[in-house]
């Protein structure tokens, strides 16, 4: 019976609704095991000295000011962009809502890079919802429960996503390697124009991820004339194992 279950689970998607139901059941376990960490956080907050808080406050104020200034610029640029797009009659950009979620657990299996977050269907998170942190794309939701969901990171060995080089829009597919700090570009011709330091953005092809979010930076390119494709290593931008708070990008399909 167990063997039959395994095969059904691996080769069909009949059990997916059941597994999503089960996510609700599992959430309390992750919540409890996360308690020591939360207590530590809380204690850290409470025991902070006044000077430290004041310093942090002023630093944050500066940061807010800088960011606000940048948003002002952005608003103008966005208006211009919409105008240009209208001139070109291209499809309208979709509205995106961003939701802050807390990471409540990580998968106990060392072979898969999966996070458990505390937002689910009740908050609008669906299977396929893109998850990112402040610095880049992290992954996508693979199972959405009612109050929690499982997020497959882009570094998982079974994950691949379409990307684009910021500099010249060369398209490629970035594949997870099972290593938290490395992605690989698949099937990129030896002659393609890519170099170290290039920033990769999600290209939005494939329809899973919204376009234009930073994915990673190229750290090494090896071209072997004897082989058809270049070996390109990419360091992901997102803090794969450090983010406590993540952003769920909910695309409103209207």
């Amino acid at each position, binding site marked *: 019976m167990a063997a039959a279950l395994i095969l059904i*689970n691996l080769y069909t998607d009949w059990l997916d609704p059941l597994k999503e139901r089960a996510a609700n059941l599992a959430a309390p376990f992750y919540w409890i095991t996360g308690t020591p960490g939360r207590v530590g956080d809380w204690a850290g907050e409470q025991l902070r000295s006044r000077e430290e808080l004041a310093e942090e406050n002023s630093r944050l104020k500066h940061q807010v000011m800088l960011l606000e200034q940048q948003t002002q610029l952005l608003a103008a640029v966005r208006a211009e962009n919409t105008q240009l797009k209208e001139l070109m009659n291209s499809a309208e950009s979709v509205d995106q809502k961003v939701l802050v979620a807390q990471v409540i657990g990580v998968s106990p299996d060392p072979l898969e890079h999966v996070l458990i977050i505390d937002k689910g269907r009740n908050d609008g998170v669906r299977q396929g919802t893109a998850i990112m942190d402040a610095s880049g794309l992290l992954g996508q939701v693979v199972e959405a429960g009612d109050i929690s969901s499982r997020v497959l990171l882009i570094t998982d060995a079974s994950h691949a996503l379409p990307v684009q080089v910021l500099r010249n829009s060369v398209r490629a597919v970035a594949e997870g390697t099972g290593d938290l700090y490395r992605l690989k570009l698949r099937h990129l011709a030896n002659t393609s124009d890519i170099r170290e330091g290039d920033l990769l953005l999600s290209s939005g092809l494939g329809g899973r991820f919204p376009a234009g979010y930073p994915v990673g930076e190229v750290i090494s390119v090896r071209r072997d004339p004897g082989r058809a494709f270049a070996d390109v290593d990419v360091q992901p931008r997102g803090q794969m194992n450090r983010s406590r708070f993540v952003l769920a990008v909910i695309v409103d399909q209207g």
Partner: protein
Amino acid sequence: MDAHNRWFILFTILVALLLAVMPLPLEWLWFRPAFCALLVIFWTIRMPQSLGVGFAWLVGIAQDLVTGSTLGAHALSLSVVAYFSLLTYQRTRAFNPAQQLMWVFVLVGINQLLGNWVHSLAGKTVPGLTFLWPALTTALLWPVVTPWLQSIASRLRVR
């Protein structure tokens, strides 16, 4: 024989499930002992008349659901472990601690082997024999944990 204080079994299983998903640093993940397998072995040896393969299967399904692994993976491996443990419980009870430790290593090794087999069905490969580490840590945990469990279970007269 009447069931008595069975809640304790459930309690130990719940604790094991918690430990199974407890966040650990990345480098330690490979060494996480298989707490559920340890408990299944312990309880089947202690109460072979009432706890058997079915019990192990339920624990396994619970572990699958909580850890989000392939449904049935732990159910299968724990059932097999329970089966072997039931076959040999009379001998295991008579073993001295060192022999018990070795036998637990073998049983949990089978558990890990089956788990690894399901992993490879899903296309995940493990470098070398690293998947056997939990068997070692579980075996080393056995002589520490079982006297405890044994004494609590006797005091509560779990039947």
